[in-house]
């Protein structure tokens, strides 16, 4: 299976790997997947008082496509407000990374992680 240049670049030089303090009110955390399924993705956003995502971090246990999908997602999240971030669709990730059909679930996981992180932030902040 040949992967696209973009996917390989995100895999080899993943962007925004790391951990944000999940106890902070400004941080929303999404943890999706399960070790038994071979994918666990944790995606975190740090939201400014103006409601803009000023930082995003991820850690992923999974295949190359899962790592690249989460790396790309963090890139896209930065600078967006929460409503804009909610519109990120898994098929956008599929297209950008040219994911093969058997890897589409990796992009679904990334979309779910984004939605869960936003939800977590909103719940924490009574929105």
């Amino acid at each position: 299976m040949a992967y696209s240049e973009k996917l390989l670049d995100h895999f080899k030089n993943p962007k925004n790997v790391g951990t944000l303090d999940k106890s902070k009110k400004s941080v929303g955390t999404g943890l999706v997947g399960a070790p038994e399924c071979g994918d666990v993705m944790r995606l975190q956003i740090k939201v400014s008082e103006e409601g803009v995502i000023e930082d995003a971090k991820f850690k992923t246990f999974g295949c190359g496509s899962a790592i690249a999908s989460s790396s790309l997602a963090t890139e896209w999240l930065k600078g967006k407000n929460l409503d804009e971030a909610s519109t990120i669709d898994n098929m956008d990730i599929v297209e950008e990374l040219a994911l093969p059909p058997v890897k589409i679930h990796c992009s679904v996981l990334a979309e779910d992680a984004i939605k869960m992180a936003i939800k977590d932030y909103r719940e924490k902040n009574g929105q």
Partner: protein
Amino acid sequence: MENNLIYFDNNATTPCDPRVVDTMLPWFYQNPGNAASRSHAFGWKAEEAVDYARGQVADLISVESKEIIFTSGATEANNLAIKGVFEMYARKGNHIITLTTEHKAVLDACDKVEKLGGDVTYLSVDREGLVDLKALEDAITDKTVLVSIMWANNETGVIQPMKEIGEICSRKGVLLFSDATQAVGKIPVDPKATGVHLMAFTAHKMYGPKGVGALFVNRKKPRVKVVAQMDGGGHERGMRSGTLNVTGIVGFGKAAEIAKQEMEADAKRLVVLRDKLEQAFEERLEEVYVNGSRTSRMPHVTNISFKHVEGEGLMMTFNENIAVSSGSACTSSSLEPSYVLIALGLGDDLAHSSIRFSLGRFTKEEEIDRAIDLVANGVTHMRDLSPIWEMYKEGVDLDSVQWQEH
């Protein structure tokens, strides 16, 4: 081999030994005969070459030439043995016993047998990957026509207690078939002395060409017969029709001859290299698990789980340099991790984290040294990226986490 790429996937297929290639070359153009052509010298010459190769192959496993049926490979030989015995002995019974860890060629053939009205018992294995001999004995009934147990497992290299299995089958009077694809040519295999009545194996796992394999069928005490699964010219004593792959068979013969001379030395060298690889990972990394028995196993194989790292992702960190395979679901289209590792009682998480290293005759020590660094660095890189490694390091009980399963 190409581009300095390290080939540690010899259980998938082995490179064809250059000595085998040299032996095969005259059989493409100079000697074009069909071994079944009885009317001219081309045919006689081809037949003679096939007979010679049959002798070389038979010699490797200490059987008679007439007991070797050439096939297109081990998958065909497995199918011929299982379906062929099922059909031939239908009057005696319809029950077959096998293992859950068999190769798909055996499991799928058994599945077909069930569809044809047969009854198949799938025995589980223990944590080491070994059959429970008592359970095997208890599973045999008066309807049992065949026990099918692989000699050595393709994923783990675990070797079954064939001698004991042979004794049970002899005592109970049932035929024993073994898929010995991964064992023949690498360790001593003597079906007659072991009580194995039928045995499948192939050239391309022992430094021969792809596209040629064999089924050993015992001829005396007992005289075993299988119903042909392909209709045609009645080649191979009526058990396998089809023009013989003369070139491939010549190569198979040469590969068998070399294996007989060199397998002991190969095994001695490879076990040292394999152990070096394993020990280096165990010393340099935490949470490393070797899967399957470490005593009853092939000398050139190790199957290792690097916990909290997903296998395919890990492979991507070094697959420009090393070729291996993984029990991770991501390497197959099924999304299920290796059924063999699951059968050993590994959790899905460890199965997803497994890598199989299978060394071979052409493996060099410097490749082992390079691989140790590349793989260890890959594991460290992937663990830095892994949220579950982070949780494990923080002391989080991963079993207590509410995972959002897909």
